[in-house]
């Protein structure tokens, strides 16, 4: 192993094969750029879908004459019930004020508070909302009831709505995952194909090297290093553009557009690291592996 020699060879071949090298660099740049834009978009979409799913709640209405003791008892029962992640008590009065704010004219017409005390339950997973409802609802035709209390008047989870939310968000998530997978595959194919083409134009050179008595790795190292450099260069250029776009376009919008300001979105440094690593790894491995068939001399 002589790193100095291989390094020199790699730079020489990049200089001598400027056009194929540039093509490889450009393909790395473009795919990294596309991935760099797409990954946050997928994240934001998934975040939005999760946000919607987070709004799937189960309301437990208490009877109109529920006493404080009953409220406390039911709270305890609900907290012990399966599939419950969070229990929130909305009293008659606070529910009334909340609703009045939303719809003041209607409540002015009614003139009194028709709302019961409510426990608002957040299920551990949106999908378990139906199961949770079945467990709590005395009148439910489904299965056994683990929690039932005479103080509970009704259990509602707006079943039709919930189901719609669940299926719509599921479709979005699966579509995004598929798109991401396709894009990654396409990126790898594009880069490896560009590398293959540039190697193909140099297959005679490789053949001569083999006939002169060069070992496979003696020939391969400069190519791998070349791939490494081009990958790093293309990746760095793409990341530079992404950073520019982030600073000039995304950051100013983040305050106004909710989709962009998802709290659990991937951190920019992590995104950079992933993209850079992928660009270098794919290019270097692509160069080394694509060379294999030309080494069989």
């Amino acid at each position, binding site marked *: 192993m*002589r790193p100095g*020699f291989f390094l020199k060879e790699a730079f*020489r*071949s990049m200089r*001598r*094969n400027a056009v194929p090298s540039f093509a490889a660099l450009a393909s790395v740049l473009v795919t990294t750029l596309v991935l760099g834009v797409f990954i946050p978009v997928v994240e934001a979409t998934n975040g939005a879908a999760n946000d919607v799913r987070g709004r799937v709640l189960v309301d437990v209405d208490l009877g109109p004459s529920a006493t404080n003791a009953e409220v406390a008892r039911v709270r305890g029962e609900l907290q012990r019930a399966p599939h419950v992640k969070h229990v929130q008590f909305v009293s008659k009065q606070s529910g009334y004020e909340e609703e009045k704010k939303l719809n003041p004219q209607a409540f002015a017409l009614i003139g009194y508070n028709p709302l019961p005390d409510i426990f608002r339950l957040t299920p551990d997973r949106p999908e378990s909302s139906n199961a949770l409802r079945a467990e709590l609802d005395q009148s439910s035709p489904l299965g056994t009831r683990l929690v039932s209390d005479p103080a509970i008047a009704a259990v509602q989870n707006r079943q039709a709505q919930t189901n719609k939310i669940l299926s719509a968000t599921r479709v979005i998530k699966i579509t995004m995952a598929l798109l991401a997978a396709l894009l990654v595959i396409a990126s790898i194919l594009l880069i490896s194909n560009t590398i293959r083409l540039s190697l193909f134009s140099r297959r*005679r*050179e490789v*053949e*001569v*090297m*083999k*006939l*002169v*008595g*060069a*070992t*496979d790795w*003696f020939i391969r190292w400069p190519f791998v290093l070349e791939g490494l450099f081009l990958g790093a260069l293309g990746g760095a250029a793409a990341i530079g553009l992404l950073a520019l776009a982030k600073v000039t376009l995304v950051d100013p919008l983040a305050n106004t557009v909710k989709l962009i300001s998802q709290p659990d979105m991937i951190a920019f440094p992590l995104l950079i690291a992933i993209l850079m690593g992928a660009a270098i790894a794919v290019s270097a491995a692509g160069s080394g592996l694509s060379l294999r068939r030309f080494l069989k*001399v």
Partner: protein
Amino acid sequence: MPATDTIVSPSRERRTREDAPPGIERRRGAHALPRRSVAPARDEREIVVEFRGVSKLYGPGGVGLERATLAVRRQEMVFLVGPTGSGKSTIMRLLIKELEPTDGRILVAGRDLEEIERKKVPYYRRNVGVVFQDFKLLPTRTVYDNIAYALQVTGASRKQIRATLPDILRLTGLSTKLHNYPHQLSGGEQQRVAVARAFASHPPLLLADEPTGNLDPETSIGIMQLLYRINRAGTTVIVASHDNEMVDRMRRRVIELKRGRIVRDEASGLYGAREENTDELGERLKREVR
């Protein structure tokens, strides 16, 4: 003895490789061997290349070589002649393990080529210099770098290469073309570079596949002289050629092939001539070509 006949490399010993087939040990100071005025009895010299009933079939019906048996001894210069497709190139390609024989055994310096595993092939090839009809130079490298590459693959340092190359460049008459790229050279010059590269690491065995195939007679003589000189310095040389006249004029052993079979094997002794030096050979060839 003309100075140009002496091929001395101060670093020759350095490249003696453990990977070299046992018989192909480097001939230290080969130039110092007593000049022989008459070819010695051939049996005294060890066999460098041996084909034992070697056949090579290219797919159904395609015969490259058919039960060829031959032996080439150390320091011999052998010409393989025959029309296109007679098996000359097949022998060359078998010898550098670019092809595997369908049948039979090939021994180089007593070592069966079949026993050399794929990973060890490069080390074997470093002991066999090859000159191709189409030169096979690296187009993106200068003359100097093309020749140096053959040394670089062996792990030679830049210093060692700098010490070795001038001799080879002088021998091949390329000293003024160091920094030219192959496309800036004439066919004859390109072939000289190819010979220089093949001989750079002073291999004990040199193969030349139609080295004059693309060259005019005048230039061909120059290449032949070069190979002759290398041979006289102690290297075993095998040349494939379809230029029968040129081969006859060289007055060396000739093996003729036809459709993959050896049909003639004339030892150099038949010519019975006194050993010429390179300049005498060149003069005579030029005279005869005219």
